[in-house]
């Protein structure tokens, strides 16, 4: 019990990275991460703090520094996902994108057009094709973001992250399309 107490109160929540000291010893907000290591550490921590494991009496809800299952979960969901992770890093750095970059017309046109094509699409092969192109585009963007962070180029990291957000929206729309297609098949 002593051990759990120590573990749950010791860590001051400077940022989400600090919650996983084995994976991020310096708690440095990095974009490149070791997914497997993070997952492993998350699971082992969750095994200790999960409400099913931890006695209710040992949790002090008044202590904001307490490591709870929920905060651990939030940190993990943020860090494991490239888009959320990048948005989180930019937030920590307090980096804001310029209004010009935010209203990139050619990007918005392309996104709008893709949404419209998908909305009017009733062919599974065509949807699969849109999906394939989009997945490739997303992977390329993640690579670009990675390079930008390596170069400490926050302007471009933010720019590609914004783009990634729109294409993730297309990804969600494709998933909905596929679900609807399956429902209509069944």
């Amino acid at each position, binding site marked *: 019990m002593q051990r759990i107490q120590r573990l749950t109160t010791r860590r001051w929540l400077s940022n989400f990275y600090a919650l996983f000291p084995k994976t991020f010893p310096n708690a440095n907000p990095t974009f490149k991460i070791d997914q497997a290591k993070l997952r492993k550490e998350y699971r082992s921590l969750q095994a200790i703090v999960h409400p099913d494991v931890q006695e209710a009496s040992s949790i002090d809800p008044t202590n904001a520094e307490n490591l709870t299952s929920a905060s651990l979960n939030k940190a993990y969901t943020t860090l494991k996902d490239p888009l959320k992770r990048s948005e989180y890093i930019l937030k920590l750095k307090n980096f804001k*994108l310029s209004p010009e970059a*935010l*209203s990139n*017309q050619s*990007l*918005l*046109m392309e*996104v*709008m057009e893709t*949404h*419209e094509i998908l*909305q*009017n699409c009733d062919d599974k092969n065509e949807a699969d094709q849109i999906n394939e192109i989009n997945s490739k585009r997303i992977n390329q963007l993640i690579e670009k973001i990675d390079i930008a962070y390596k170069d400490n180029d926050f302007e471009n990291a933010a720019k590609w992250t*914004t783009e990634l*957000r*729109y*294409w*993730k*929206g297309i990804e*969600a*729309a494709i998933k*909905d*399309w596929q679900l*609807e297609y399956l429902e209509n098949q069944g």
Partner: protein
Amino acid sequence: MLTSTVFKPSVLKGPGMMLARRAYHPRVIEHYTRPRNVGSLDRHSPSVGTGLVGAPACGDVMRLQIQVDDRTGVIENVKFKTFGCGSAIASSSYVTELVKGKRLDEAARIKNTEIAAHLSLPPVKLHCSMLAEDAIKAAIADYRAKRAATVLK
């Protein structure tokens, strides 16, 4: 070609999915299920202004087009298309109702607070109403730029 006024239910999902489970105000639901003025106008027409805006925080995109009477400066027709959450669709649908029949200078004065108040948008959804304000402003600016270009010719 005017597209169908029936939105696929998928537009309620996506980035706004988590919030979609919250109770929407009846006016939002009303606009969402029966959106006004959905579709598109010829963006190459000199009397049509197009505003295309996006919300980088959630990935929503909104296109709003106005057709203006060149002599009177009155917005005769308006069409929109939004891919996003229910609040974004309702905000753009409502703004088309607001601007139709208005003069450009009146339409340019519409504030997002007016849209948000009408739809009772919660604070986390205020950006949807800002997006609608940005869209009408962008459409007006586009029309005026086109007009200036033709007058100069």
